[in-house]
Structure formats: structure tokens, C-alpha cells
């Protein structure tokens, strides 16, 4: 029995083995099926997906959704002649919408003409208009295959008008008023004779030494008032320093060379140097050619000043004002000629170059403090105090914002009311700095 069973099993195995293993045709069909199976599954899924996709795009114009909630209003804080149209885009899961066409009319019911087109990501359109004229707007959606939705409802009437006050700049106005108040307060305090402390600024202290050195060596002083125009505050600050320096030069009966890139700066600088020589009691020592124009080309100017440094070998080089890429070209050439160099700028990117190549560097705000520092006039010193106080106010606001943001994030993130309250305070502070 047992033998027979074993025999039967072996026999069956042989039969199966013949069918499945030895049969090449079956093997080929099996392998093909094995490889095709996943493909067939995915293909089936893809077909279902494609079927879904082909079902989604609208077949008729009526199926494309129109924009809703259309609003048209005078553009705020502008010079008039402009209306802002806003709407809510329809849901577009499949991505058939390419944009929106905006129509305008002076009548509510008729006469609408296309006035603009915006892309699908936009829900706002600024339209150039005529002031005092009433306008109505409606919008429709455009699809990839150039189909259009029905029009949205017509907006309420909108009229453009110019504004007399930019409400978005109230924060700037408040800041200016606060700063002017601080300025007036400290200036009046200084006028009353109260002594105000100013920290030492090495670069400005060295000016006397630099002028003296040039006098001793019998060589000129080179004063570069930056490359910017007179509308740059850094140039004005530089001109304010030029006055005392030129006066010192006149007192020591030395020579100063002031090459310029901007013709207005040249005119102002010439007048300042002339007045300083007059004030020092040496009007005859002044020569108009001390202050001269070179070129308005940036690197042409740099090349010319380098040439002056190499030929004339000034004992002192002063680079004060606004500088760009030429800063290191000037400072390194001056360094090679062995001159004592004092630089000052508010261009943050140029400061490392000046720090590296010059003996003293007047950094950022120190440039603006220079005239007060050099003259020690009480009213000017008072203005420095106002500046410091303004900075203190800013630092306090920033620390407050920083702490509020941390408290908001750590303690109230889960509580809606607390979070919203602190968020409002934070956005208020943020709004203070937004222009």
C-alpha cells in the first residue's frame, strides 16, 4: 500500500514535472505572464486614473466656473487714475484655467469691453482709469483650450480719485515726529550747557595727526569725498568733515587735493574748502585747482586717483563718503605708497576692505557723528544724543518683539485666543517697520 502510494506520488510528480518544468511553451507563457502581471496591474490603475482625468475637464462652457465675489474700488494711497479689481478664483483641481479676462463698462448692464488679462495665480487687477468717472467690472475665466466661463456678477460702481495722504506711511510720520522731538529736546539740553559724553572715535582723533604728518613731510593731503552724488547723505557727511580738515590744512599752510567724480560735489567741496581757508585767515593760500573734477566713470576715477597717489605721493589719504567696488583699488594703492590712511563709509560691503588696507576706519554712523565730534558744538553733540536715544528705542522694540515671539511660540501655540492676541501685538510691531 505504502509502496503504491509512493509510486503514485512519484508518478504524479513526473506528470506535473513534465507539464510545468519540461514544457518549454508553458514555461515561456508563465514567464511572460510573470513579467506582464505588474504591468497589467499598473496599466489598469493608470487607465482608471486617466479615465478620472478625462472626466474632470469641463466639456461645455457652462461647466467652467466663473470667478465670484468681485469687488472694484479706488486704489488706495495713489495719485488717482487707478481702480483695483479683486475676485475669488473658482476651484481648479485639474488645472484647466490659464487666467482671467477683466471687462469694464461705464454702464452697469451694457457696453462691457475687455480691459485686461491676468494669469491664473492672480486675483487682483489694477486698471488705469479716468478720475471721477463711474466704472463697472466683470470677470470671466479662460481655459487652456480657449474656452470661457460665463461672466461673474457685475461689481458695484467704482470711481478713482487721488489721495491727499498716504495712510501706509503713518508709521514713518510718527517715527519722524518722535525723532524730531528727541532731537529738539537734546539740542535744547545741550544749549543749556549740560555736558554730554561722546565716546572716543580713533579715526577722527587721528585726523589732526594725519594733517600734521603731511605738513611735516611737505606733502599734500588727498581727500576723496566718495563717488556718490550730493543727494547721498554719506557725501554730505563727508563734506561736513572736509570743512574742519581744510581749516586745519590752511592753519598748517599745507596743501589739500580734492578729486571729484560728481560736478555738484566738486562745486560744493570747492566752496567749503574756500570758506575754511578764509576762516583760518589764509584766503591767499587757497587755490581753486585744489578741488578738481576727474571723470564720472567709476573705474576711470579710480585709475586717476591711483595715478595721483603714485605721482604726487600724498602723505595722508582720506577716503570719506560713499564707495563701491573701487574702495580696495584706492585703499591698496594708498597703502603701497606708504601714506597714512583714514577711511569712512556707510557702505557695509566696503568696510572690510577699508579695515584691511587703512590705518583707521570710521564705521557707518561714526561718519555722521564726525562733524559733531570734530566741532564739539553743543547743538551738534545734542543731536548725537538724540540719535543714540532713537537707537535705544529701536533696540527696546526689537527685544520686546523677540520676547513676544518666543512666548507666543512656547506657551500659546495650542491656545487659539492667546496665540491670536500675541500675534496681533507682533503684527502691530511688524507694521511699525513696514513702508
Amino acid at each position, binding site marked *: 500500500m505504502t509502496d503504491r502510494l509512493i509510486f503514485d506520488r512519484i508518478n504524479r510528480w513526473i506528470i506535473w514535472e513534465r507539464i510545468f518544468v519540461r514544457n518549454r511553451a508553458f514555461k515561456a507563457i508563465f514567464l511572460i505572464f510573470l513579467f506582464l502581471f505588474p504591468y497589467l496591474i499598473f496599466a489598469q490603475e493608470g487607465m482608471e486614473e486617466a479615465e478620472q482625468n478625462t472626466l474632470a475637464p469641463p466639456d461645455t462652457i457652462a461647466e467652467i466656473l466663473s470667478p465670484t465675489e468681485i469687488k472694484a474700488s479706488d486704489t488706495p494711497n495713489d495719485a488717482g487714475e487707478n481702480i483695483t479689481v479683486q475676485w475669488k478664483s473658482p476651484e481648479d483641481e485639474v488645472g484647466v484655467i490659464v487666467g482671467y479676462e477683466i471687462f469694464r463698462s461705464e454702464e452697469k448692464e451694457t457696453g462691457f469691453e475687455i480691459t485686461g488679462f491676468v494669469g491664473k495665480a492672480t486675483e487682483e487687477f489694477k486698471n488705469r482709469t479716468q478720475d471721477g468717472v463711474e466704472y463697472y467690472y466683470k470677470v470671466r475665466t479662460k481655459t487652456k483650450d480657449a474656452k470661457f466661463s460665463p461672466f461673474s456678477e457685475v461689481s458695484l460702481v467704482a470711481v478713482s480719485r487721488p489721495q491727499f495722504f498716504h495712510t501706509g506711511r503713518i508709521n514713518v510720520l510718527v517715527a519722524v515726529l518722535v525723532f524730531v522731538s528727541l*532731537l529738539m529736546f537734546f539740542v535744547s539740553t545741550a544749549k543749556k550747557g549740560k555736558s554730554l559724553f561722546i565716546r572716543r572715535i580713533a579715526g577722527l582723533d587721528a585726523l589732526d595727526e594725519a594733517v600734521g604728518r603731511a605738513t611735516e613731510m611737505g606733502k599734500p593731503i588727498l581727500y576723496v569725498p566718495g563717488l556718490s552724488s550730493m543727494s547721498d547723505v554719506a557725501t*554730505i557727511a563727508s*563734506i561736513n568733515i572736509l570743512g574742519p580738515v581744510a581749516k586745519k590744512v590752511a592753519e598748517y599752510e599745507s596743501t589739500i587735493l580734492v578729486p*571729484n567724480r560728481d560736478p555738484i560735489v566738486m562745486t560744493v567741496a570747492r566752496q567749503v574748502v574756500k570758506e575754511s581757508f578764509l*576762516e583760518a585767515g589764509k584766503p591767499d593760500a587757497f587755490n581753486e585747482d585744489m578741488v578738481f573734477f*576727474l571723470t564720472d566713470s567709476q573705474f576711470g576715477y579710480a585709475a586717476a586717483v591711483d595715478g595721483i597717489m603714485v605721482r604726487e605721493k600724498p602723505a595722508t589719504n582720506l577716503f570719506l563718503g560713499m564707495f563701491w567696488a573701487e574702495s580696495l583699488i584706492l585703499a591698496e594703492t594708498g597703502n603701497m605708497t606708504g601714506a597714512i590712511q583714514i577711511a569712512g563709509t556707510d557702505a557695509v560691503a566696503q568696510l572690510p576692505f577699508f579695515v584691511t588696507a587703512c590705518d583707521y576706519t570710521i564705521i557707518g554712523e561714526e561718519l555722521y557723528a564726525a562733524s559733531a565730534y570734530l566741532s564739539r558744538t553743543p547743538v551738534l553733540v545734542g543731536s548725537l544724543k538724540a540719535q543714540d536715544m532713537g537707537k535705544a528705542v529701536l533696540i527696546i522694540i526689537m527685544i520686546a518683539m523677540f520676547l513676544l515671539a518666543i512666548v507666543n511660540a512656547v506657551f500659546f501655540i495650542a491656545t487659539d485666543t492667546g496665540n491670536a492676541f500675541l500675534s496681533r501685538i507682533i503684527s502691530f510691531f511688524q507694521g511699525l517697520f513696514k513702508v
Partner: protein
Amino acid sequence: MRRKIPLTIAFVFGIVMIIQFFIPHPVSRDFYQTMLDWRIIVIAFTYILAVSSLIRIHINKVRRKKTGWGFSYVTLISLTVTAVVGVIGGCFQPTQITTWLIEHFNWQIEQRTVLMVIFTYIQIPMGATMFSLLAFFIASAAFRAFKARNLTAIILLLTAFVVMLGRVPIGELITKRLPEVLQLQNIVEWILNYPNMAAQRGILMGVGLGMMATALKIILGIERGYLGGGD
């Protein structure tokens, strides 16, 4: 009187321009535009002064045979030639003379005027030459700045080394297997975005207030240095 008039002008126009900043009305906008036009006119006149100053200085140099007086000839000739070519041949659009010359001599020039030829093939390459010197000056300045003389200089040197290495592909390559925080490019990003940015913003804040203070001092007549002399 010599001081009162400029101070009054500075005060009146300063205040008016501040007010103008807060008014978007077309009247205010037109006023601002008029001021800009006036500025252009003033600049045009000051250019006459500037060029006359340039010519006088170089003529004096040639006369007195000062050091490098030969270069003064180059300046004067270049100035004259460029001005004449610009006036006769036109700046951006060719004049009739240029058009006639181009047609008559069959000139093949990409630029439409001779002045633009001078600008494109002489001035721009010369400017680029000066600018390219910056690379060598940066190298020499960096060599001087990165000498490890004291603790601060050592910190500067190390930071510069890390930033430079992190900015080149090899820096990224050598720290690729380290945790993300220790990868050089991330360290560099952190240095630039936090300590460096904090320092820059500190300076910029002071600069902003300084600008505001200087402008107000000039408008209010507290600062008179730009008029020359003290009081």
C-alpha cells in the same frame, strides 16, 4: 545774508520734500518731478564748471611740465575728440553726417555711432581692466589681514578659511559623510546668515538713524558744515 539765504532754501525745500513724501496726489507728484528736472538742469551747468576745471588743470600741468605731463596731452586730446565725435556724429542715434559717412565709405560697424564705438571698444575695456585689478588687490589685502597676530586675527583667519573652503566644491566633498550640521556648506550658511548678518544689521540701523539725523540737522539749520566753515 550769505548764510541766511542758503539756510532758508534748505529749510523750505527740506520741509516741502518731507511733506511731499506723504502726499500721493498728482500735484505733489508733479512738484517732485519738477524738482528732479531742476536738478538735471543744475547738473548740466555744473558739468561746464567741471570740464573747465579739468581742462585748466591739465593745461597748467603741460605748461609747467609737472610730473606725468605727457598724460595730460592724452586726456586733453581724448576729451576733445570724444566731444567732437559726440556732437557731430550723434550719441545713440547717428546724425546725417554719420549716416552719409557710413553709406559713402560702406563702414561695417555694429554700433550706430562713432561715439558708441569709442565707448564700447575703448572705455568699457579700460574700465574692465581696472576692475580686474581688484582680484590681485583682494589677494594682497587678504594676505595682510589674515596674519595670525592675536586672538582676534586668529578667529578672523579661521572664519575666513572655513567660509572660503565651504564656498568651493572640495569643501562640500570632504565633509559629505559628516552629519548635516557639521557639513561645511551648512556651517558657512550659518556664519553668513547669523553672526555676519547680525553685525551688518547693527551697522545699518546706526547708518539709518545717522542719515535721518543728518538730514534733519541740515533742514533745521543745526548742521551748517556744507556751507563751509563753522557758524
